[in-house]
């Protein structure tokens, strides 16, 4: 059940995740964090529905709660003192605000990696690494091929070992099984490298084959994402967008340019979600 986002070219997908994570973490900005939080929550929900909600409730939200609690406990900066800790350190409004913002950011990051792990399957990541680092991508491919085989053999070895019925500790069982697996992996690898050489590995500089197609749409998307992130970073560096938490929480800079930046960023974050939703509407209207 692939959705429209999963049909993007791997490079486009990667640039999406990259631009979002850079803008989100380059500077803690409550508005950006909010947009990211809701935008990625929508994306996660569109991609995986129930599973995403379950994961959020179980792991992502608690993780961000920790951040919200931790910050005021350790950070005592800020001018607006709300109360004092028993050890005499101040409990400030600014540190609470900062904690909430960074908690939201961590949660947004969890959402981002959730989508990333669902969408960027191993062959997509390998395609990306393979463009630049061919040997590396081949090693990853080989490892991913061995892992299921190793697991299958491990299951067999465990059974065979249990059947021997030796009376020894679990640790000793583990050692025997591990030794058996190491021996087996090494021995099989000898044949395997013969098979690679038999098919001409190492004679010439390898190319890296892939089955992805780069479409015009991908060019538009990438251009859009790069322009938006470039715009935002420029605004940030020229201090047209300006946020500080300490000593006082302060929002400043050029109001109009800031608003334009936030709107543009919202479009960037929502881009895959919009694509998925438009596609669903189209299908429904076609039927």
């Amino acid at each position: 059940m692939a959705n429209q986002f999963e049909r993007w070219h791997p490079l486009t997908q990667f640039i999406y995740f990259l631009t979002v994570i850079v803008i989100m973490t380059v500077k803690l900005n409550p508005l950006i964090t909010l947009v990211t939080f809701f935008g990625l929550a929508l994306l996660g929900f569109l991609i995986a529905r129930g599973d995403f909600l379950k994961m959020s409730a179980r792991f992502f939200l608690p993780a961000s709660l920790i951040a919200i609690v931790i910050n005021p406990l350790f950070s005592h900066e800020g001018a607006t003192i709300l109360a004092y800790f028993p050890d005499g350190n101040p409990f400030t409004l600014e540190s609470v605000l900062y904690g909430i913002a960074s908690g939201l950011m961590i949660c947004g990051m969890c959402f981002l990696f959730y989508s990333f792990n669902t969408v960027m399957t191993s062959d997509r990541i390998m395609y990306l690494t393979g463009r630049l680092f061919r040997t590396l991508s081949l090693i990853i491919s080989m490892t991913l091929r061995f892992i299921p085989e190793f697991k299958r053999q491990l299951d067999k070895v465990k059974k065979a070992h249990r059947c021997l019925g030796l009376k020894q500790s679990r640790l000793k069982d583990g050692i025997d099984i591990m030794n058996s697996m190491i021996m087996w992996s090494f021995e099989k690898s000898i044949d395997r490298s013969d098979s690679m050489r038999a098919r001409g590995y190492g004679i010439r500089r390898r190319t890296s084959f892939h089955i992805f197609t780069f479409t015009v749409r991908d060019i538009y998307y990438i251009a859009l994402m790069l322009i938006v992130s470039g715009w935002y970073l420029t605004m940030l560096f020229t201090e047209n967008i300006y946020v500080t938490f300490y000593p006082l929480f302060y929002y400043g800079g050029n109001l109009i340019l800031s608003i334009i930046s936030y709107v543009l960023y919202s479009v960037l974050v929502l881009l895959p979600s919009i694509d998925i939703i438009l596609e669903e509407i189209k299908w429904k209207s076609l039927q």
Partner: protein
Amino acid sequence: MFENYYLISCIIIILSFIPFMVMLERRKPHAREIMLVAVLVTITVLSRAVFFMIPFFKPILAFVIISGIGLGARTGLLVGTLSAFISNFMFGQGPWTVWQMLALGLCGFLAGLIFSGRYDEGKLHTVLVCIFGFIAAVVIYGGIMDTYTALLYMGNMTKQSFFAIYLSGLPVNLILGICTVLCLALFTKSMARKLRRVKYKYNM
């Protein structure tokens, strides 16, 4: 300008990997060499699954160190970084991926740097390896991962907050240290024997 050092440090880590990767591509490694790396990464990544019946037993770091010892610093680095990367394929990538790659890669690299010469001469002392393993687990791996936690969770860092995070991470790091020492004591010699046999069979 930035209070959040997380992004910058990630970028620095990623940039620091690049020379090694370029070196790997330039070298055009032999089929047997990359096969051995792939096999070692598989063993490392799945070592936890072998000992699944023993709680808290994490042999990953130990096998990265052994790989470094047996095949040198470069391979140790490669096995370390790839093991972190690929085990996250199975459990999900996250903001920690890059840091784990750095931590494991560095441990493998140092193990190779310190011990691979002795290994080649056949003068490997398991006790020394174990001591190194403990330090690697508690100081290098634990230290890097705790720094990651601190950077991600706290924008403005104070000595206090850093100290608090390291202290709270200490029990976990100590468990990892003990596991690593135990694994190294159990597997260094036998793995060395097996690697020697493979190298002989490979004509390496």
